[in-house]
């Protein structure tokens, strides 16, 4: 064994890894969840639907995948990107073998759940995609890797390539980057809306057809891959028959809510204006009847679903805009996740925020909270934000904000309310609501018991009653409760954007 050759390789591989993981870190998709795959007895690897975090980086993010670029050479010149063609950064490229070796060796040592592979664009999107395909093919079929793989779709690549790769990976995503076409054309002139939406549509069609091929019609279930095929997993609310996430139940719950609100808002007409969000209407409805691409027998197409990412803070779109785009994506494209990445200024440009400006972390946090509300709590985007109020409150989270604005619906009786009403209470989450509903069949619950079940009483006590009594005597008044919520849990203790409002006499009267 000639040591010199290996020493040179050592530094090169480490350098490559450093450059290409440094370049990939702004892609915040990090989950390894969505697929349950048992080990097959002879190859290495398995996947867990809940996802496993292997460590946490110093910026607090979970690291569960080997997140790298295939190469950071790029022919595009997107203004916000570190690797854009006009930046002078050291460039490197992995060989497919190096990627496979790294993934397998890290996986064996339990450092990672799997691989996350993105790439800068060499020669053309199709060429890059085929390089990625080669690497993934090697990993799955020569190295027999059965762990989790997440691949980024390159905007503008051909449908055939997407289909081929889709059968090898667990998740595929295409970054939306910016919520409007104008923003995109200003900051990333080489990408256009059509090139991004077309691959997303391809993936979506493929997933729907493949699921239908395997007999799954309900999109809320996790996919479990066993030898026999998709196994029906419990939906996120378990087997309890009085809670079902069926569309009809949710619809009824919304109608009931609207009725109660209407009672209190007599004389206020429904605010209807022309939709000033042209970008959403341009997303085409997926034809659920196109059966052109039928899944290969026994194979699964992108079983963990599709996701995407948007950059927050690089362009002046409001939260209202962003959350509406997310909602449309979830409903029309059936995405699993939308990720929000706070913009970190790297490049100097007239169209971008100045260097040295701090990334909008609180705003990103609020968007994630709103995203959760849309997906798990049965909220609709129009309930959270409106044209008049297009930004989230930095002081309190969106759920508390909504609750405080609709105090006429509270307090809610814990022992009698239904699932979706319980979910609307700040401090009660999905797990707590399920436990409450199950436990109250046996006997009435009181505050101590629900606290042990996971209800955050610090927030919830303003909004609930147990057996008819509230925990303390609370004045159901918007400003009072808002202040209590802010001062009990300061998110932004000293912020430049303190919202001043005029004091009035009632603030001082108990």
């Amino acid at each position, binding site marked *: 064994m000639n040591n010199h050759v290996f020493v040179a390789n050592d530094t090169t591989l480490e350098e490559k890894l450093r450059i290409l993981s440094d370049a990939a870190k702004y892609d915040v998709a990090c989950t390894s969840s969505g697929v349950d795959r048992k080990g097959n007895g002879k190859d290495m690897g398995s996947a867990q639907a809940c996802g496993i975090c292997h460590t946490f*980086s110093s910026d607090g993010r979970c690291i569960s995948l080997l997140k790298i670029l295939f190469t950071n050479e790029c022919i595009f010149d997107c203004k916000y990107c570190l690797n854009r063609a006009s930046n002078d950064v050291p460039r490197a490229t992995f060989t497919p073998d190096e990627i496979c070796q790294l993934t397998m060796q890290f996986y064996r040592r339990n450092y990672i759940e799997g691989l996350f592979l993105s790439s800068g664009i060499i020669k053309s999107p199709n060429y890059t995609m085929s390089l990625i395909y080669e690497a993934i093919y090697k990993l799955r079929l020569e190295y027999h890797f059965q762990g989790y793989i997440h691949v980024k779709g390159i905007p503008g690549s051909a449908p055939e390539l997407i289909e081929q790769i889709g059968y090898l990976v667990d998740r595929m995503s295409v970054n939306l980057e910016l919520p409007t076409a104008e923003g995109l054309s200003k900051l990333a002139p080489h990408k256009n809306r059509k090139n991004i939406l077309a691959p997303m549509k391809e993936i979506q069609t493929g997933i729907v057809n493949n699921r239908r091929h395997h007999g799954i019609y309900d999109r809320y279930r996790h996919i479990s891959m066993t030898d026999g095929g998709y196994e029906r997993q419990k939906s996120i609310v378990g087997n309890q028959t009085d809670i079902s996430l069926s569309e009809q139940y949710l619809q009824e719950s919304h109608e009931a809510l609207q009725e109660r609100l209407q009672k209190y808002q007599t004389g206020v007409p429904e605010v209807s204006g022309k939709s000033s969000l042209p970008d959403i209407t341009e997303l085409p409805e997926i034809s659920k009847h196109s059966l052109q691409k039928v899944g290969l027998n026994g194979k699964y197409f992108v079983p963990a679903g599709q996701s995407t990412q948007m950059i927050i803070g690089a362009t002046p779109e409001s939260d209202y805009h962003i959350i509406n785009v997310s909602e449309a994506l979830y409903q029309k494209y059936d995405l699993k996740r939308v990720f929000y990445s706070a913009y970190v200024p790297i490049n100097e440009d007239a169209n971008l925020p100045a260097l040295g400006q701090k990334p909008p972390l609180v705003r990103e946090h609020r968007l994630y909270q709103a995203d959760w509300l849309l997906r798990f709590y049965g909220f609709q985007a129009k309930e959270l934000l409106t044209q008049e109020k297009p930004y989230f409150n930095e002081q309190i989270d969106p759920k508390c904000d909504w609750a405080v604005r609709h105090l006429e619906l509270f307090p809610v009786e814990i022992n009698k309310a239904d699932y979706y009403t319980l979910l609307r209470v700040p401090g009660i989450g999905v797990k707590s609501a399920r436990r409450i509903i199950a436990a109250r069949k046996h006997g009435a619950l009181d505050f101590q018991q629900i606290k042990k079940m996971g209800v955050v009483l610090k927030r919830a006590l303003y909004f609930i009653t147990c057996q008819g009594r509230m925990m303390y005597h609370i004045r159901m008044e918007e400003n009072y409760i808002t202040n209590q919520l802010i001062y009990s849990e300061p998110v932004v203790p000293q912020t430049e954007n303190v919202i001043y409002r005029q004091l009035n006499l009632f603030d001082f009267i108990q």
Partner: protein
Amino acid sequence: MEKIVLLCEDTLDGMLTAVFEGFVIKNQKEAGGSIDRQMRQCIEIYSALDYEYEMFSTCIEVVTDMEKVEKTVRTIRRRLGENTYLDVIRALCHFDRHRATKVFEFLTLAFEKKVPVAQLLGEPCAMAVFELARKTANEAHLFTGFVRFEEIHQIFYARIEPKCQVLILMAEHFAERFGNENFIIYDAVHQFSLVHRKFETPFFLHGNQMEHIKERLPEHQLAKQQGEENYEQLWKTYFDSISIKERENPQCQRTLIPMWYRKNMVDFS
């Protein structure tokens, strides 16, 4: 207060035998039974190592018997369901001294009421067991991610220092994932190892032979084969470069991965 105390071994099997014995005592209906009826209501179970003798309590030693363990397991699984059984096992893997007593009280309640266990969460003893189970399950889930193997001549060796006995809960996950590898996970706190040979079922080993395994192997076997990449160094490089400096938040990191988990991890060494 007059009570009966059952003393058992500090293992899962010991405690399940004691639960069995506890039910035997509780269900004694003969008038000529040797134990007073009032005392039968108050039964506690402790591990023999932990217990300090009190006045006014009758102590009974329990000998671990696999047949009794199997009977208990079968009954719980059949009458209360698989999920409850798993929760009981998780609660027993915790480090709380009173865990066996809590489990016993919970089982008494569960067998008595004919309702699914999810409905019993309002009762304090069910909630106690549920809390123990939850803490253990969370720790086990975190450890599945934090275990770090190093290659020692075709064996992958890992060392962990958990608070609860999480190896029992993690064994299946690792056996499935690394079915084609030899690996050993050594639990330094409980002196307990999980050993897995290629394509075989894993088994547990009591004792601390694995603690000093690295010193035992001859030098030439230990050398990280010259010419091979140093994957630990590569991982550390990756770990450092993946973090976005402008978003650095050590407090958040500490909440997500407390300091005591980091002891045997390459990333933080």
